[in-house]
């Protein structure tokens, strides 16, 4: 699904170079749920941006679904983002002056999908995250948890192959976080690959695998069996 080998990313200004990713390698299989952990500035978000084709990299190779993405044009990268990748950001990143329905509609619009098909997908996605009754509300009229659920609806409505979530529970309390994690696990159970950046080790245990990043490199990898995952989920819901 995602295969990175020796990927490097350097941010340059006139006076300083910051190595965000150094010789970074990872392989994520279809249907996997991978938690990415690490301290602030370790390169987690840069990895997610590179994986999501939001940022280009300087060296190494990256294959997404077997396709070498370094050779893609900007338009092709946009199309892949639109069709194969769903994004969930820390602050939900909803467009403030669009209601929830229109926010979820945004990526489908760029796919030039017919209105009827869009409507079907939007209502299904909002139903799945439990926001059908809030579809005409503006983001500011929803709680933080509801906003994040709306962002999840936007991410899944295009039926992506992979969801990239950057601290999706970062601004939420424990109860809300658990609800979001339940939702993500359920989406993963349907076959969607998920890469989730998190600071929270307990949430990381609900993934199949935890990849710990230090200074732009993969430092440690932990695999969790179904028992550990269930126990983490039960602990959280208790």
């Amino acid at each position: 699904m995602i295969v990175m080998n020796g990927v490097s990313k350097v941010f340059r200004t006139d006076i300083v170079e910051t190595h965000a990713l150094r010789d970074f390698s990872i392989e994520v299989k279809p249907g996997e749920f991978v938690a990415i952990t690490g301290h602030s500035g370790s390169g987690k978000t840069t990895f997610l941006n590179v994986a999501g084709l939001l940022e280009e990299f300087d060296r190494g190779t990256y294959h997404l679904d077997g396709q070498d993405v370094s050779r893609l044009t900007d338009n092709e990268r946009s199309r892949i983002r639109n069709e194969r990748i769903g994004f969930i950001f820390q602050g939900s990143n909803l467009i403030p002056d669009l209601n929830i329905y229109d926010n979820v509609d945004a990526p489908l619009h760029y796919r030039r999908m017919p209105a009827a098909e869009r409507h079907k997908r939007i209502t299904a996605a909002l139903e799945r995250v439990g926001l059908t009754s809030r579809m005409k509300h503006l983001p500011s009229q929803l709680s933080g948890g509801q906003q994040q659920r709306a962002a999840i609806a936007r991410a899944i409505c295009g039926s992506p192959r992979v969801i990239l979530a950057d601290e999706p529970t970062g601004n939420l309390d424990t109860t809300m976080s658990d609800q979001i994690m339940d939702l993500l696990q359920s989406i993963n159970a349907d076959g969607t690959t998920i890469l989730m950046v998190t600071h929270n080790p307990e949430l990381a245990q609900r993934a199949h695998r935890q990849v710990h990043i230090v200074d732009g490199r993969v430092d440690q990898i932990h695999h969790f069996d179904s028992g550990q995952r269930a126990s983490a989920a039960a602990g959280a819901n208790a």
Partner: protein
Amino acid sequence: MLLHDIRLALRSLKRNPILSLLMIVTIGVGIAASMIAMTVYSARAGHPIPWKEDVLFAVTMDTRENEPPPPGMPLRNFEYPPFTLAYQDAVAAYRSDIPRRSVMMYRSGQLVTPERANIKPFHVPVRVTTADFFAMFDVPFRYGGGWSRAADTTAEPVVVISKYLNDKLFGGANSLGREITLGGRQFKIIGVLDAWMPHPRFYDLSGGGFDLPEDAFLPFEWVRAGRIFPQSINCVRRTARVVNFESLFTEECLWLQYWVELPDSAAHARFQQYVDNYVRDQQQRGRMPRPLNNRIVNVSTWLEMNNVVGDDTRMQVMVAVAFLVVCVLNTVGLILAKFLSAAPIAGLRRALGATRLDIVRQHLTEVVIMGLIGGALGLFLSFGGLRLLYALIFARGLESSDNPARLTLAQSFTHMDFPMLLLAVALSVLTGILAGIYPAWRIGRLTPATFLKTQ
């Protein structure tokens, strides 16, 4: 997609209403200034008789002293021969049978004494002209027609009057055959003109050219028979003086406009040769000391030689366009600030799959809509500005006139016609695009990830 972009644009405009309003007003004021200047320019720059551009020619001969230009006179003006002819030169030209039609003429004024006692005598402008005037300039008749060439030589007491004069004296009825008293003499009406207002009055541009045609037209021989003095006389030789009426016909004084209708370029060349030969002959007789400078020019060139549009009007258009450019540049800064403040949303849309083109198009749609709203405001301000211009320049002059054509003439300078409205719309769209193309391009070039963290 366009509908989607329009919806987003309107939302974006509402998001920063004060900034949006500021940009719209800036564009509106710039467009208003341009449209007012262009309306006045367009009113002055029109071609009065385009269908005869290739056959109608003004004739000039250079009869001046062979001296350098007087101090202060622009070289451009000095280079042209005088715009009128002396009597003897006009008569010589009139002898040629090369032109299909020829007209020599001048403007004067006469007192009209109405038969009806309730109308006081009043002055009207009069044109004394040879017979071809009406056919040559395609003058429309409501009743009757002009006179024959024979009437020019015998001073037949016939007259063609304007629609205004016919309305005033006869209530608009068919007045053919009736008599009118002009300068104390009786003239029989043989023609009544329909509404006719060449704009500018190209056949006689004295006084700037933006005046109405005359109200009475008399056969040419009435210059002698009626001793009707021309309104303007220009004596070009140091020794020339108009000491009495007869000296009009012998002195080096210019007072006749001269026009010919030539069917093709061969006829034009032959007539040019004819005039040049005549001038050479006159030079041998001690007249016309300057080098050959006889010009037989079409209407467009004639209007240009007479600077009908006017340097002031051209300057006004240039200043107005420069002002619009300044407005556009100011708007560029404002739009850039607005777009950059919303860059996180653009970044988010890029993350969700929008291409650069999607983002550029969405932002350009917004500025075009802003341009159109600014254009609508500009049109509103233009109408107000033109009304003000009308009140300041024309209103007082109109109070003392009962000629409705004068009102039409005044309105032609302050009236925005359909092509000008179309120009305003095009200018609005263009202004929006010019002001927004760079900010839209900038926002489209941003890396999607740049602003996502800050959203």
